[in-house]
């Protein structure tokens, strides 16, 4: 089966005053229609840059330096900005963490939604208007008709995020990139929105890239998961395997750090000592070796590849090699 999205060996760089910073490197993954890919990892590990590379919103200083991003047989890494504009908002939509990124404070909700819908769906103003109201009702906005006449600032954070989600889903995108869509929301509101995204995905076979650092949300939403560390993918697995049998020491550390509400009393959380390296001073060898409990001489010297454990499970760690070795 042909994948809807196939990212191959993506490397994205930023030009800073003196030098070039490689923000993400060796990123490869695939995503099929109707599938949800979760992306997790600590702040600064490159989750947002990966998604901004896909929709071509890296800004003036950033560029895809290497690799390919095949979307529906087209390489987005080679697409011109004018062609991109047609794809964005139509075939690929993005929900940003902060809803005001996607909302213009000087236009009413109705204005913004109708504009977007007319642009991408070739409907008349009247048709676009009733479709916008329908979408607002779908995301459970009460008084949808009145909200159409209101400005973003009078809405609560949860309402704004739902408006943004309604806008992102209005054009029935093939791919929805959701970058921390619920991080700013309360759990009861978050539960409403997750439910909604699940329903919409089932109705229209949308593929979703779901970025978050909340492992609870990942467990809830994802089919497969990518764990990122310091600009690279360190583990990839289906969601059940990742939680039951994480292989990379970083993933294991993350899992052990979560305080659980479903456990009886926990005396002590385990934590990962130290901090993430910055792109300016990446350590030699494995990027996790400065914090890893299993570090060996080899880890300090040589970069591990993203080794294949089985068909659906990969880990960027030398332990995979040695374990295999021991079994053989």
């Amino acid at each position, binding site marked *: 089966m042909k994948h809807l999205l196939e990212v191959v060996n993506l490397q994205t760089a930023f030009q800073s005053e003196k030098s070039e910073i490689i923000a993400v490197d060796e990123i490869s993954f695939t995503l099929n229609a109707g599938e949800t890919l979760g992306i997790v990892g*600590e*702040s600064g590990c490159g989750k947002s840059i990966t998604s901004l590379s896909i929709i071509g919103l890296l800004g003036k200083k950033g560029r895809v330096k290497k690799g390919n991003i095949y979307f529906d047989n087209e390489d987005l890494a080679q697409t011109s900005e004018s062609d991109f504009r047609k794809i964005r908002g139509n075939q690929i939509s993005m929900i940003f963490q902060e809803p005001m990124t996607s909302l213009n404070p000087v236009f009413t909700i109705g204005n913004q939604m109708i504009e977007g819908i007319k642009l991408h769906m070739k409907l008349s103003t009247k048709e676009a208007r009733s479709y916008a109201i329908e979408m607002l009702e779908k995301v*459970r906005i*009460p008084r949808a008709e009145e909200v159409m006449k209101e400005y973003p600032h009078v809405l*609560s*954070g*949860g*309402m704004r995020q739902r408006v943004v989600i309604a806008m992102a889903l209005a054009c029935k995108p093939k791919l929805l990139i959701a970058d921390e869509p619920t991080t700013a929301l*309360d*759990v*009861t*509101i*978050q*539960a*409403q929105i*997750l*439910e*909604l995204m699940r329903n919409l995905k089932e109705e229209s076979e949308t593929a979703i890239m779901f970025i978050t*650092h*909340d*492992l*609870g*949300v*990942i*467990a*809830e939403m*994802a089919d497969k998961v990518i764990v990122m560390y310091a600009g690279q993918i360190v583990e990839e697995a289906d*969601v*059940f395997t990742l*939680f*039951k049998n994480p292989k990379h020491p970083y993933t294991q*550390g*993350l*899992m*052990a*750090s*979560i*305080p*659980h*509400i*479903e456990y*009886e*009393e*926990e005396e*002590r*959380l*385990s*934590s*990962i*000592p130290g*901090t*993430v390296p910055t792109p300016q001073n990446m350590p030699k060898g494995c990027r996790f070796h400065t914090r890893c409990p299993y570090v060996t001489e080899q880890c300090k010297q040589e970069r591990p590849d993203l080794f294949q454990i089985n068909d659906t499970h990969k880990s960027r760690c030398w332990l995979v090699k040695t374990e295999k070795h021991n079994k053989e």
Partner: protein
Amino acid sequence: MVDAFTVENIAPLLRVENLKTHYSIKKGVFSRNVGSIKAVDGVDFHINPGETLGLVGESGCGKSTVGKTLVGLERATAGNVFFDNKDILSGSGSEMKKVRRDLQIIFQDPYSSLNPRKRVKDILEEPIRVHRIVEPQLVSKRVDELLELVGLPRAFKNRYPHEFSGGQRQRIGIARALSLNPKLIICDEPVSALDVSIQAQILNLLKDLQKELNLTFLFIAHGLGAVKYISDRIAVMYLGKIVEIAKTEEIFMNPQHPYTKALLSAYPIPNPELRSKERIIISGDVPNPSNLQKGCNFYSRCPLAKSICRDEEPLLKGEKHPVACFAVNDEKKWNAGIRL
């Protein structure tokens, strides 16, 4: 952590009675008062020495306002607060200065709560000097001790806040709160801005410090996992009021208020095998706190609401496990499952 059996005979370190903090809404060039936001609207609780009380609830329900009012950053509109048996809302200036020392606060945002132009050394030394905690020649030694307590190398004291990671900055915030040897620390979302692995480091640190220094905590957060991990008891707030308060296990095993139940049910559990569990998803948004209706504040979203809930305000009732709800015993409806 304190043994539950001994606690009941100890005099509380902090006792809060009917606390109200309202913000006035001003409009126009003459700053006319056009109404008020009842951010905290009649709250009662106590905390025993050495205990951690968790305070949870939806964004905007008044958790931070409770914390800020206790440390004097906001003025109470009504009520009493007794700390160490002294009434701290009506105390005199010099008495208050002493009390303020014993009652410290740590904020959520380790980025904005530290002065960017001061070195760590100055950030920590200043309060020690101002309050004459130790002899002037011992100040520097005290700073070293504080850094050691929070697990930072001494060499860090000559650096500026921007040279640290989020977790390290939060450690500095904790060291600053500890510098005056407080008895009670209000932790206002101290780990919400941090990544899970760093969050675990800070939670462990707070627990260790509590044991070592016999500290009492009011721990404000909306991450239920962290709250459960650190708290002996938990108070659940909704729109300016406490709706339920009980021992931690009680809240999680036997939640009573419909909002608490919804909150626990909505919390995403980091285990995909449990994803199919029936959720209680409550619809709607939190009402506007400047325009509250009479009756129960949860009425507009409550799946169990009945007519009395619209007309009367439920009071926090019960000895061991107080709850403010008219429908506490309407169990059956819950089992039917309520969905969006």
